[in-house]
């Protein structure tokens, strides 16, 4: 049994290494995901600004067309005025022309307002677009680096896992099953020493009788408190320290 527990302890070291590496890889993948998300938000922002600009530009074009139409109408009416002899008709037509001019004046104000708005938006869009391009360029380089690191870790985990197989092959199925269950439940620490009668997993006292049994290593013993697999670890005696 002592030998089995020693093998379990070796297996635990390998499993902890795999767990640590997988944790590091997860952090890298999480970082990549987070940055991609941030970049997507920026892209969406630029897309939204562009759509709003297009919408405003469409409005500008509509108003300008209207202004042009009104301008043509005014010109037509002015030409008619030259042909009219009747003073009342002339006055009526003049009134219409004045009304159109007033409407045009208002329309021109609106067009100017829209143009000013468009230019301000174009300026912001230009800035955001340039920022996004910069971010995408920088991220492209960084992402490649992070992905390479994650791939390297994956390769190392694969190699370590291959080594694990050969260690696990020396243990019985039941023992591995029990070990793996404790490993997953106890944060990657399934096999712990008993030192000075204290479980080094949960630091609770081990009953002296149990401590003796553990020392003999004839069978598998679990901590009564945390249920980890226990093995005896001799402490340096006070005589030897002196």
């Amino acid at each position: 049994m002592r030998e089995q527990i020693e093998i379990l302890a070796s297996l635990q070291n390998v499993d902890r290494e795999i767990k640590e590496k997988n944790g590091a890889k997860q952090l890298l993948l999480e970082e990549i995901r987070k940055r991609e998300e941030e970049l997507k938000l920026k892209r969406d922002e630029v897309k939204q600004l562009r759509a709003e600009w297009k919408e405003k530009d469409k409005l500008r074009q509509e108003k300008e067309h209207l202004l042009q139409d009104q301008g043509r109408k005014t010109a037509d009416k002015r030409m008619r005025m030259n042909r009219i002899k009747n003073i009342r008709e002339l006055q009526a037509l003049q009134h219409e022309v004045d009304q159109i001019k007033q409407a045009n004046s208002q329309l021109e104000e609106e067009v100017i307002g829209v143009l000013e708005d468009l230019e301000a938006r174009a300026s912001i869009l230009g800035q955001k677009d340039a920022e996004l391009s910069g971010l995408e360029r920088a991220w492209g380089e960084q992402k490649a680096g992070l992905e390479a690191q994650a791939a390297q870790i994956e390769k190392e985990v694969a190699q370590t896992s291959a080594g694990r197989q050969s260690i696990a092959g020396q243990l019985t199925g039941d023992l591995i099953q029990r070990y793996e269950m404790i490993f997953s439940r106890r944060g990657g620490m399934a096999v712990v020493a008993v030192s000075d009668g204290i479980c080094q997993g949960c630091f609770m006292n081990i009953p002296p009788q149990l401590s003796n049994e553990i020392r003999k290593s004839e069978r598998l013993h679990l901590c009564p408190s945390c249920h980890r697999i226990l093995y005896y670890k001799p402490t340096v005696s006070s005589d030897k320290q002196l």
Partner: protein
Amino acid sequence: MVDGASRGNPGEAGCGAVIFDETGKTLRELCRYLGRATNNVAEYEGLLMGLEEVLRLGGKRLRVESDSELLVRQMNGLYRVKDEKLIRLHQKAQALLRRLVAYRIIHVRREQNRIADRLANEGIDQALRKVPKNL
């Protein structure tokens, strides 16, 4: 080619102008910091800066390119100028243009005006770099 930039509108503003000869060779690249100004004021200041330099160089015939539709249409008399400050700048520009033999003011797309845009932003960046960071 002329341009104005305002970060905030109104905000920190600058203007830029690049002057080419008839063969396309760059004669001058100019930029200036304007302090706090609107986008439109910055565009007009860019135009004025360019015109003043062209006249200093003895230019007689000129094609002005700007990505500001408003500036181009106002300078071509298609829209009126209502803002008081812009009226003064507009009148100044008209006075400078009258000293030329011939000119055209045309609108170009933003992408075609990158040099002037860069210069306008440089005008702002240079001024901001001079401000001590602890202020």
